[in-house]
């Protein structure tokens, strides 16, 4: 009976002894939590109020980092005025001309280039309108007026713009993934093979797939331009070396790399849509489209939302692909936010300023994540319901 003895043993109850084991088992993760998560999190807030290059002692600068980062100014750009006549100035064929002359020139043939002359209002230069220390972050027109947004850190905002631009690939990707998932959800053969093929790019090292896509996008000998020309679409785009094509090019690669994951999640979502609803819709005479619109799609909205949110969280942190493929170029056209932060921190050693930048991005991501967690219950609920059905 001694072996079954329950109760005090060496002064501790069984319950207490169990608890000690519990604390021991979670000690390592708790230590990791303090040192690698909570500590750095607090440290990065403190750092964002300092200037520190890791060589000298950190300087406390108060809100300076935050001010340079976040202060924006919006200025109206007036049209330039001819000083002698007071007429507004236009730009025709790279020539500054008054309005009266512009009316004559518009639509004429340019003797130098042979093209039709196009006139546009000539605005005051942005840097003349922006306060000291500010540079152009964005220029836009609203209600026929020209505006400029100035920032003391235009590179960061451009990085944020580039990154957000590339997020547009997500809805496109989701639409394709949904189509594939619906196709895969039919009674067809070789499901496992298809699933595998589509999923493969998701788990492959970005370093390797980036090299492959660089070679695909190669303007002279790459397969893409060759294939497009063969299909009768004459393309001379230099893709990654073209500042207008580089973002779409990276988006296409991103879609290729994420499609399989989205498809599998959609497939799980589809299997969670109760079959009796389909039967009911069929009896009611609903066609293919109606069944999709009124049964499938409502059942998939939590899934779609989940994918949208996780896709955005990942998308905001894109780094390796543009870093390897374009180094952020041409100019700054494919520089992402994380690249801007990385450069400030590890190349220019501006640890404090980079921390403030990281927090701006982090706040955006955390907000999205929070919404995701709050709505995750709905998505998990559908999952388990489907398993039971």
């Amino acid at each position, binding site marked *: 009976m001694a072996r079954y003895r329950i109760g005090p043993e060496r002064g501790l109850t069984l319950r207490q002894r169990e608890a000690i084991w519990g604390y021991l088992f979670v000690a390592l993760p708790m230590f990791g939590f303090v040192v690698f998560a909570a500590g750095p999190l607090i440290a990065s807030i403190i750092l964002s109020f300092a200037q520190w290059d890791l060589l000298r002692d950190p300087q406390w600068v108060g809100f300076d980092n935050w001010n340079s980062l976040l202060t924006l100014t919006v200025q109206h750009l007036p049209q330039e005025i001819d000083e002698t006549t007071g007429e507004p100035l236009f730009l025709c064929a790279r020539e500054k001309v008054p309005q009266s002359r512009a009316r004559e020139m518009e639509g004429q043939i340019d003797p130098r280039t042979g093209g039709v002359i196009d006139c546009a209002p000539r605005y005051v230069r942005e840097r003349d309108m922006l306060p000291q220390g500010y540079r152009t972050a964005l220029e836009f027109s609203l209600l026929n007026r020209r505006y400029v947004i100035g920032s003391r850190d235009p590179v960061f905002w451009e990085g944020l713009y580039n990154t957000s631009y590339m997020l547009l690939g997500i809805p496109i990707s989701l639409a394709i993934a949904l189509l594939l998932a619906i196709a895969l959800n039919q009674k067809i053969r070789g499901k496992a093979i298809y699933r595998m093929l589509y999923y493969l790019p998701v*788990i492959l090292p970005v370093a390797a797939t980036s090299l492959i896509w660089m070679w695909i996008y190669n303007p002279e000998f790459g397969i893409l331009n060759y294939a497009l020309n063969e299909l009768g679409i004459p393309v001379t785009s230099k893709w990654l070396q073209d500042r207008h094509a580089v973002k779409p090019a990276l988006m296409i690669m991103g879609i290729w790399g994420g499609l399989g994951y989205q498809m599998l999640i959609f497939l799980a979502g589809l299997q969670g849509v109760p079959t009796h609803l389909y039967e009911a819709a069929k009896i009611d005479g609903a066609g*293919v489209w109606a069944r999709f619109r009124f049964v499938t799609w409502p059942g998939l909205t939590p899934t779609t939302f989940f994918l949208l949110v996780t896709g955005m969280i990942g998308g905001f942190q894109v780094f390796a692909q543009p870093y390897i493929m374009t180094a952020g170029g041409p100019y700054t056209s494919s520089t992402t936010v994380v690249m801007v932060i990385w450069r400030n921190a590890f190349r220019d050693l501006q640890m404090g300023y980079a921390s403030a930048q990281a927090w701006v991005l982090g706040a955006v991501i955390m907000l999205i994540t929070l919404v995701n967690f709050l709505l995750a219950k709905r998505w998990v609920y559908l999952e388990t319901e489907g398993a039971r059905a």
Partner: protein
Amino acid sequence: MSTLKSFPTASRSLTLGNRERELLIKLVSYLVLSIGAFTMLVPFFWMLSTSFKEPQGIFRMPPQWIPDPLTTENYVKIWEKTNLARGFVNSMVIAVVSTTGEIFTSTLAGYAFARIRFRGRNVIFALLLSTMMIPGVVTMIPGFILFKNLGWIDTWYPLIVPLLFGSSFAIFLCRQYFATLPEELADAGKVDGANQFQIYWSIFLPQAKPIIATLAVLGFIARWNDYLGPLIYVRSTDKFPIALMLTSLNTMYERQWTLLMAGAMVALLPIIILFVALQRYFIESIALTGIKG
């Protein structure tokens, strides 16, 4: 009949019967899936075919899909004349050590959260989970400063040590898994007077093979593919993991696409083999958690 009218019944206008319609849907599905699969595979074909070409073979127009002449010279060169093999071994060591540690600590903690009663258990668990919400970019800079002060720059420690303390994601999965196992399992051990570690080690851990396999696969792939981490912490070429080694070859052998594609193939191969062999665990883990590897 009123319910009929509430649906825009496109199918009514078609004269197809039910069976024909189903056949049509099937056909369209095959078509969509095949075109998609082909498009997904083209980059791999392109890589494979380039990697077996002679250096001047890539300038030929139209491009050859099956190289003629076919050569394995690129693979020999990338393996023997460059540091890629070194990177391969480095990545293996980093991935195996860090993932083993991650799994040991995470199963232990997951077991405690699921099966041991102690005060504050749920609070601690919630705290650990909350770290999943912190984007890596925020803790990246203080992490660097910490490891710099420890003198760990240009070592593998920053890539391995944090994982030895477990990861929230793995702990979460383990807890969920251990919570589903029947309580009677532990009774045998308790009767024998075994302590909690013995119960964990000899009774519960052997039951956890599926979740361990899933975590092993996901962990290995995450470490093998990691780019930003090594880029920040590892400086000397001979310590580069394979991802960094591959892109450093890109600057060294710029435009030598036959060689670079052979290199890419070498970097992909372990992952492809792992994936094909252990497919089941991937698909399960995704369906379970919705988190990619």
